[in-house]
């Protein structure tokens, strides 16, 4: 894989507060609010924007095709170029990377990436049905299509393979809901104990209500720019150092049992008896990380990455993702969280914003929200935007954002770096 484009910077971002339902605003107005926040933060003029990328997952939630152009229209960006990107839960991450490509290719100097989802137009269980339509509708959906069920089966296998415990999974929930108490944009800040998590209603064994993210309405915007334009627009741009993307089979049942694709800091002898990915790991996540690390020259992720915002739709998927990203070896994800290594004051804070579990998961906005929170972290401007600097990671110089779809079918990893 060759990465030869021009340097791409993020210059501004905006997020609406994610919430269960905001019927007083439609998706266009929600994006407009996030967009205006981003535009006003650097006094950007509409005419400086060369084009855009629209990010939203489901046409079912709104029963409106071409929602993307309705946003483009509302924002006053017509007749500039734009396209819609969709890839399940990773829609936001893919759209962010598409914006990166628009700038890296030299086509655009400034690209606005906007994401949104309006999930409150249907009830939670209908919403789950719509999401389950993102599993194979001939073979998986009719058997009992329910994403929490699929992730629960992966969690059970991870527990069997590596000895991961439900208490370790609960620690992810406690950490992320706890971090969110200092994030004014978060949907569900909560102070929790292991008992709270385990005693909340069982959704799919072993995942309880507090192991699973919620449905949300929300929008997020990232403004990307070329090097010359970035420094013209702001004194504090953040470099998007590299991107990586991976994929895997639509059906969980088709995942093979092969060898682990090794990162620079791993040896074949680390995984002598491990059949990979099976259903315990995300090969797409590993593939995305490997591409992004190679392009950024990262050989020791735990020591070379200062913080991570990753796709924790489930507590179990956060644990699985520590391993895919090489923050620890496969099998060590449970103890990684238990030992506090991913805590706000840990070795590498993971989801200091509260992640999807606590910030919310309005699908098309989620991956872009991660980029905005990471941008503010690397700008060291959390205090300005959150009116509270508790979540500001002190040494934040290099961050990783990770967006994830389906049962691990599309995964994106992007590395971002502070420049001064």
């Amino acid at each position: 894989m060759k990465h030869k484009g021009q340097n791409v910077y993020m210059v501004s971002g905006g997020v609406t507060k994610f919430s269960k339902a905001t019927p007083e605003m439609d998706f266009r107005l929600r994006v407009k609010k996030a967009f205006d926040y981003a535009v006003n933060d650097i006094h950007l003029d509409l005419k400086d924007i060369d084009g855009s990328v629209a990010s939203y997952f489901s046409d079912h939630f709104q029963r409106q095709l071409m929602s993307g152009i309705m946003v483009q229209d509302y924002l006053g960006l017509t007749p500039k170029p734009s396209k819609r990107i969709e890839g399940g839960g990773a829609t936001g991450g893919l759209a962010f990377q598409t914006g990166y490509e628009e700038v890296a290719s030299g086509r655009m100097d400034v690209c606005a990436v906007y994401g949104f989802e309006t999930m409150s137009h249907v009830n939670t269980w209908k919403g789950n049905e719509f999401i389950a339509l993102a599993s194979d509708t001939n073979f998986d959906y009719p058997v009992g299509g329910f994403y929490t069920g699929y992730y629960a089966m992966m969690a059970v296998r991870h527990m069997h393979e590596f000895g991961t415990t439900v208490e370790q999974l609960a620690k992810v929930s406690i950490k992320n809901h706890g971090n969110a108490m200092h994030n004014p944009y978060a949907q569900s800040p909560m102070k929790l104990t292991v008992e709270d998590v385990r005693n909340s209603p069982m959704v799919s064994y072993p995942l309880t209500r507090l192991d699973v993210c919620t449905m949300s309405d929300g929008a997020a915007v990232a403004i990307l720019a070329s090097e010359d334009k970035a420094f013209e627009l702001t004194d504090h741009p953040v470099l998007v150092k590299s991107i990586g993307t991976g994929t895997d089979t639509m059906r969980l049942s088709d995942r093979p049992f092969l060898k682990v694709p090794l990162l620079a800091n791993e040896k074949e002898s680390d995984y002598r008896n491990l059949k990979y990915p099976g259903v315990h790991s995300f090969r797409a996540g590993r593939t995305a990380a490997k591409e992004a690390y190679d392009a950024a020259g990262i050989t020791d992720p735990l020591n070379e990455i200062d913080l991570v915002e990753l796709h924790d739709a489930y507590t179990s998927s956060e644990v699985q993702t520590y391993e895919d990203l090489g923050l620890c070896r496969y099998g060590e994800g449970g103890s990684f969280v238990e030992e506090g290594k991913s805590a706000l004051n840990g070795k590498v804070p993971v989801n200091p914003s509260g992640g999807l579990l606590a910030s919310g998961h309005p699908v098309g906005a989620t991956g872009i929200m991660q980029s905005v929170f990471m941008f503010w972290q690397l700008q060291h401007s959390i205090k300005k935007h959150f009116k509270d600097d508790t979540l500001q990671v002190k040494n934040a110089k290099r961050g990783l954002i990770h967006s994830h779809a389906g049962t691990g079918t599309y995964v994106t990893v992007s590395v971002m770096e502070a420049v001064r």
Partner: protein
Amino acid sequence: MTIDYDAKMPETQDGTEVYNVDPLIVKSHYEIDYIHSYAQDSEFFRALGKKKLMGSKCRKCGYTYATPRGHCMMCGSETDWYELPNEGRVHTYTTCYFGSEKFLPETPFNLIMVEFEGVDSLFMARLIGADQEDIKIGMKVRAKFRRNLQISPTDVYFVPAKE
């Protein structure tokens, strides 16, 4: 000439259900029947009616799938249908206490991924005849078939099997 200065739309009583007035929130109904083809996977569904579970085997590299798959993901070659064993083992499982709206009335239900001896990939199905605490990874399970077909992958399901 048809100009009518008193033209009037007929009044109807098919009004809209209103949930709230500020903002105005209304009910919007949507329903559709698709003409859905199982296309190259049709044989899998027909075979379930003959109490047979069919997988796919690559003509070229010999990779075996416990699912229908016209072409091999390992080498791109065509596959042939072949009959899977009637018994397998639980590779992983869950019990769903909630679900998508369509399946809510069936909760709680068990989902399993079945591994078959000598087959390279898994098969997802329902398991009945066992509660959550009875299910173990490695447990032997047996395929059973509906007599009255639904023409759906749920025409096959699994039950616990004796060792």
